């Protein structure tokens, strides 16, 4: 049983979460027309033996999507953060519509 330290709810069993895949890949912009970029985002994975960034959602809890750094060799969790916080850093706020 993994124990994930949810930033909102504290340490919880992984039963309360839904796994959401690799968080190290970069999602193209919604209107990016490049098939190659989408192909890489959807299909290409590194499968590391070691630290892996992955999405988990606290579905039976605060419902926040989290980015968890988990060591694939021993399940040790190095960090947990709100996905929204991390992704907001990458994409600056859009201007409100006029």
């Amino acid at each position: 049983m993994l124990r994930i330290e949810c930033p909102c709810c504290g340490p919880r069993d992984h039963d309360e979460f839904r796994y959401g895949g690799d968080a190290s890949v970069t999602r193209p912009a919604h209107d990016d027309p490049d098939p190659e970029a989408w192909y890489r985002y959807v299909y290409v994975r590194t499968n590391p033996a070691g630290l892996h960034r992955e999405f988990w959602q606290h579905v039976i809890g605060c419902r926040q999507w989290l980015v968890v750094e988990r060591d694939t060799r021993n399940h040790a969790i190095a960090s947990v953060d709100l996905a929204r916080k991390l992704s907001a850093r990458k994409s600056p706020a859009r201007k409100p519509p006029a």
Partner: protein
Amino acid sequence: MSSNHKRLSMGGRIDREQPVDFTFDGRKLAGYRGDTLASALLANGVTLVGRSFKYHRPRGIFSAGPEEPNALVTLGIAGRREPNLPATTLELADGMVAESQNRWPSLAFDVQSANGLLAPFLSAGFYYKTFMGPTRRAWMFYEHFIRKAAGLGRAGTDPDPDRYEVRHAFADVAIIGGGPAGLSAARAAAAAGARVALIEQDFLLGGQLLAEPSDSAAAAWLRQTEAELESSETVALMKRTTAFGIYDGNVIGLVEQRDPTNRQPVGEARQTFTMLRARSIVFATGAIERPMVFSNNDRPGVMLASAARTYLNRFAVLPGKKIIVATSNDGAWRTAFDLAAAGAEVTVADLRASLPAALVAEAAQFGVVVRAATHIVDLRGGHAVRRATLNGPDGQSEAACDLVCVSGGWSPTVHLTSHLGIKPAYRDDIGGFVPGAFAADRFGAGSMMGAYSTAGAIEDGHRAGTQAASFCGKSGPAPTPSKLDLGETAAAQLREVLPAGRGKAFVDFQMDVTTGDIELAHREGYESVEHLKRYTTLGMGTDQGKTSNFPALAAMATLRNATIPETGATTFRPPYTPVAIGTLAGRAIGHHFKPIRRTPMHDWHMTNGAEMLEVGLWMRPYFYKQSGRDVNEAYVAEMRNARQAASLMDISTLGKIDVQGPDAAIFLDRVYANGFAKLPVGRARYGVMLRDDGIVFDDGTTTRLAENRFFMTTSTAKAADVLSRLEFLLDTAWPDLRVAVTSVSDEWAAMSVAGPKSRAILSAAFPALDVSDAALAHMGLLESEWRGRALRILRLSYSGERAYEIYVGATAGEQLWSRLLEAGRPFDLKPYGVEALGALRVEKGHVAGPEIDGRTTLDDLGLGRMAGKRTGFVGDVLRRRPAFQAPDRQRLVGLECIEEGKRLRGGAILFLPGEKPYGHGRGRVTSVTFSPERGRYVGLALLAGDVASEGSEIVAVYPMKTETVRARIVSPVFLDPQGERLHG
């Protein structure tokens, strides 16, 4: 012979004031409170308690703990029957009914013990060599008989009347093992301020200290420490509790047995499965004594030396009068001294040539005969040992005996640490495996770390307990370490493998694996321990080879002329001791196996003739019994009523999501393949969502309630997935969009009225509302209130008929449902179930779950025009990849059965006429229904585009029923292609 004739009149930790009656194989026997079944049997002189797995050899009690390989019994009767329980771990209770196993017709006379005579043929790999390969047919024939002959106890087949519980628990420090190291660790951790859970499998704390005389210094130390821990508010003493597995995140699986001596266990669970989450763990699991390997070493009356000492000092049972103690180390000498002090005639046969002078001197005081450089070669005796053949410096000699105590040293109990992937590391100085490196939150203490002396274990436990508490940030003032020195001398661990005599020398008693089997495995190249294990079945018994593992490794190492670390160690896996499946399930059995979701109208369905169907977790009406004799008759009648009058359907199971925010329209425009930005307020639109890879994800309708507020519905099956996906996109991809999504699935009851008379029914049910076509056109919305609850009426159709979806606050669902039926009575309004619902949509050519199966694209489903030339929505780019445009890509078509009296079936494979019906075919039938409109079976299918020309014939093959039926390829819309009914 009198009962309890092997019981001493004094001493032990039994309560002579409380006699306990039990039966073994129907024989009435008595023991005392504080006994185990094994100790009570020994006290009564029962030496033969079971037959072995393969050769049906007579077996007795070998150990005094969970490592017991031989003395397995079946406990209880009828539904409470539980097989394969070690008698050594069963706390004796009044009325206990125990049976021996694997014997017929009786334990003393077993027909299949003749297998022993066939032994030369039953060696390792025998069955496979004989019956597999070219003679596989023979195996198919013999397997039944072989399986019947082999094996252990049989489980009961009656339902178990007892209750089992699952619970969750938390602790700062979990300490596994209540021996000297564990007790000392608990004391230290509790003093530091940690919440401690001390887990002990036995019903008494103390571990090996329980083998010390009850009036000794060890007993005093134990009493004092236990009292100290009992008075501590932060220590949970969990006796009768086995830690069977350790999992990630320091989650420990525990099984607790109910106190069997409690005569009125009202409401108490027989077993409780606890998932304990600990911040740090101290492993104080102790060590298990090793047997010695010589001919006929499995005879009843052969026992581990430490076990004999436990029976003597803890249970006041003297299991023999004429005893040989065969050992390779100092520890077993204490057994010899105690047995001699209790009046037995004892000989020590020590493998070692030079013996510690102090022990030899002490032996003289107790009148123990000492023979150095001597080992047992062979034993004789059927149901109990009678004579031993010894081999010493003066050659072979014979000695009479009625008990043989053996000690081949000790093996640290590294099973639980193995569960964590910690590889055992061999230590030459103690001649055994200890756990390798621990993570920072785990600690080992006592003999499991090789600290074999009591004083050492207590000191080690103190250190580990302090460190484990400190890891949790608890570092209160340390108590004075408590001390107890029993003056043990170091246990040297010899690993010599002795030449066996002519009889079988057992390594694994439970699986009947002998030194001969290991030699054979070696000869045939199965040298790696993992191969050895699988070839000989070594360590595969219910005891997981607790006593056999090391002797087997030593034997293989000798054969390979290698060191033990070179030979390697096997991996122990959970559970440490067998766990009943029922315990893990707890109360999640029968209808508690999974949650059941009921709609607000559930009770009405139940009292009004609905046959219910499980749809995921939901219970939905399948059909109503008043509609027909069976589902096939009922659904057609329910369909007809919807097409001719009107029908009412409970659609509360649809996923419902409230989407709000200034960017809600932009968000939906990206989420759906078709556009939503320009949807006017008060209008609904059918939408399809794709996955990132371009495959269709889900469909539903979304209604614009206000400029920045939408009401989305999803399919029943995908409700949770869609919500989660929307949240994912907002949290990870587009955090700049100001949108909130919330599930409102349970807040609304939903029902649909479909059929030509539906508008009239609505007018009658809601006289105050204007439901005219001008006020409520197709895809329109009407918001109001009904009896104080919010009401939404959407004019949407799934069936192809004029239809309305009515949403009302969930608590008013059943009232509104009844009101609609009442208002609809003059119009023949009747309820219908999911079978008719599915049939209606097939007839109308609407796709659903069977077509949106995670493999189909918009184009496959004939929905490509919905997206048109739009871009910038999820799945937009990859849906246009070339492979999805291949000419033989399977696309949605309609099929019409053209053979009189035959039917189409969902799942049938499609072939061209004249084509050999072999392989995956050209496509498959996804959904079928009888169409009252067409008067025949029709269906939807996915068929390769290059052969899917409308009007041509296709053959549907259903191998499960060896059916072949001809069908015509037609448009998937079987009814009203112009959509006149929607508006009519």
